């Protein structure tokens, strides 16, 4: 029972995963959820996408290429 999570809870784990490894129970619960759910794997891909995009934003900001003329 403790391993069954809603999409709402899974989404929190998915974003938390971007900042560091999850505790074991959460990791297992999330994996199970992703196997059984239609929506959350897409949300996961979106979050990774966003993470990649922010990497590009950061590179651009660091080079002084953002907000040059406003």
């Amino acid at each position, binding site marked *: 029972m403790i391993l069954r999570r*809603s999409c709402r809870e899974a989404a929190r784990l998915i974003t*938390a995963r*971007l*900042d*560091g490894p999850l505790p074991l129970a959460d990791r297992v619960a999330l994996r199970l959820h992703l196997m059984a759910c239609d929506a959350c794997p897409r949300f996961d891909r*979106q979050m990774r*996408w966003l993470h990649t*995009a922010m990497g590009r934003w*950061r590179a651009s900001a660091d080079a002084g290429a953002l907000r040059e003329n406003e």
Partner: protein
Amino acid sequence: MTDLSALLETLRPQLLRYARLQLRNPAWAEDAVSETLLAALEKPEAFAGRAQPKTWLIGILKHKLVDQVRRHARECSTGPDDEDGAVEEQLFDETGHFRERPADWGDPQASLGQQQFLAVLDACVEKLPNQLGRVFLMREWLELDTEEICKELAVTPTNLWVMLHRARLRLRECLQLNWFGERRTAP
């Protein structure tokens, strides 16, 4: 020396825009930028000798921004606002399911290659509520790890976790709306 000083002054507006985006406070941003320019003026040879002086300058700015956060941490509230939670309510129904299936955003490279995309993402970052924006950029731009952020802002890991989550949900929503197409969740 006046040449360097004049050159640095031309960069001040852009540095200010960056600082305001991170700090969400004009006075703190002014301080951070002034300190940055002063530090640069103290090392004219370092500025002149670099292939990418702007990058070096922004590196200094980022340090000054962390200093400002530290200095003013107590003036920032220590936890998520209730209204920031609305984004989660929009996405999930009472049983915790997605109201609408998240869209397929395809290959990031297709979007990331477009200059326009960064401008849209940047605008979305700016639109984040102040507290969420501050925390999000501490993580994603200043690249502080979560423990450091908790320490600097005196917030609990749980509260930080919630704020980062909401910031990301909002960014996702903003991109969905402004880059990928129509809003996919209920208003």
